[in-house]
């Protein structure tokens, strides 16, 4: 371990890597901005963000529909995932012996580790036909199964382990004397959860939801495989949609064929980047606020 003895040398090498790790991402983000510049030739910023006119051959890029679809799918997934996660997290931390949490943790971790493509395959295999044959008709809609709703379902399943882990941490961080104080006053476990624990954890819960949203927004492959990929504003949730990440992934082949397409797709990545960053930063601020309130 000679090189370690020369502290100067080894330290310099280490700092060099730190520099790389810090600088490269920043350079890449800037690079992305630069590459997407071309998209402003024919479009104003409000066109880009809100218009739904998507005519690449004419250089018209209105991302409105895609952004809308992304928002729709993300909201749907949160609607389905968040209640399940809150209920499960409360149950595991307050209603069962601590050993159950230890048993469930591996299940949650395995779910978190399953690659996106596998969720996609499973979605195509099981969820799409189920939606087409049972769920949509139940609500009096016709659907091929490839729809915004399906995207929402798959996404919900994918973000559940993520949100669940955060929620469990949040509930665990509430000192047990607080619910004990409520119980000592004669409240039942459920009253305590309702009026004391939920209040205390509220900021943390919101933060976990926002984290989940940011995760859902950026998820690409699994959604792409089940959402239908039709450029439109879907009339109802059982119709196909086209969220932003799917747009980027799907059209990569066309990149060279249409001039200026490249900058459009890069711009899509920029939009995605900003939205996800925004959610992430918001969630982080919330969780810091929550941690401060718990420590006091």
């Amino acid at each position, binding site marked *: 371990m000679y090189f370690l003895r020369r502290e100067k040398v080894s330290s310099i090498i280490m700092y060099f890597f730190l520099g790389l790790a810090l600088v490269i991402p920043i350079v890449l983000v800037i690079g992305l901005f630069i590459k997407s510049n071309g998209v402003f030739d024919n479009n104003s910023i409000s066109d880009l963000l809100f218009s739904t006119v998507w005519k690449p051959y004419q250089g018209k890029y209105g991302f409105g529909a895609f952004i809308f679809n992304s928002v729709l799918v993300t909201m749907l997934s949160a609607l389905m995932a968040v209640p399940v996660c809150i209920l499960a997290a409360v149950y595991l931390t307050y209603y069962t012996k601590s050993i159950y949490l230890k048993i469930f943790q591996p299940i949650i971790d395995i779910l978190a580790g399953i690659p996106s493509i596998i969720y996609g395959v499973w979605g195509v295999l099981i969820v799409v036909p189920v939606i087409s044959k049972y769920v949509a008709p139940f609500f009096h809609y016709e659907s091929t199964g490839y729809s915004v709703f399906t995207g929402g379902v798959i996404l919900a399943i994918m973000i559940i382990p993520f949100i669940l882990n955060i929620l469990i941490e949040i509930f665990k961080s509430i000192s047990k004397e607080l619910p*004990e104080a409520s119980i*000592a*006053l*004669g409240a039942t476990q459920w009253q305590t959860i309702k009026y004391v624990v939920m209040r205390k954890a509220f900021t943390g819960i919101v933060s976990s939801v926002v984290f989940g949203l940011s995760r859902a927004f950026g998820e690409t492959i699994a959604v792409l495989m089940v959402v239908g990929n039709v450029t439109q504003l879907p009339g109802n949730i059982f119709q196909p949609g086209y969220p932003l990440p799917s747009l980027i992934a799907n059209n990569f082949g066309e990149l060279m064929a249409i001039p200026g397409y490249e900058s459009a797709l890069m711009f899509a990545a920029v939009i995605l980047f900003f939205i996800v960053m925004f959610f992430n930063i918001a969630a982080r601020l919330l969780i810091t606020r929550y941690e401060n309130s718990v420590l006091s």
Partner: protein
Amino acid sequence: MMMYPKISIQNLNLSIRKQPILKDINLDIPPNKITVILGPSGCGKTTLLKCLNRLIDLEENIDINGKIILDGEDILNTRKDLPGIRKKMGLLSQRPYPLPMSIFDNIAYGMRINGLRNKGVIHQKVEHYLKQLSLWDEVKDRLREPASRLSLGQQQRLCLARGLAVEPEIILADEPTSALDPISSMSIEKKFVQLKENYTIILVTHILRQAKRLADYVAFIYLGEVIEFGTADEFFNNPRQDITKEYIRGIFN
């Protein structure tokens, strides 16, 4: 000797994860007096309190047997109406734990979960209990503010008021002044002396001087066993056991 005891603890044995914590506790708590449970810091005393209001139910890996008789009923071995049993006891912990709500709502909490809806009555009672703890003047203009904004001393008084608001018969206090400054501690101690007229108070402490100041009766618990029990006078002036003598002399930490 004494009148009919308020609480009678009989042959209480408790182990956590097979480790005995409370060994064959037999204790009669007299009504309307301050009974101090004295002893070096350890987990026995708090655990005993938790048995009294069945908070022990929330812990895992507990083996417990024995009886705790309150008003003629064995409250340790029953499964009926636990909230009702707990309402008979007010708990004051080592550190104040204000509920995450306003000052007003903290006091009102116990009443509301029991179904009290009449706003006028609630308001009246909140004022009454805040006054009883001499908090009213300090907080009357900020009743809707979060309770967490109060100082520690105020929070502890708030917790006591909150506990009294459910109209218990017994007050369980677990080292209630250990997190407080001397002035706030004094104020809590004074309250206890006033309160014993109407409540039975069980005070756990490891501060010898506090025990001397407040106790009517003392139970000395060491390593999970009741070493000695008697009136404060007997205990401090004429202790029977050697361990007790050494403890009083301050040889223990």
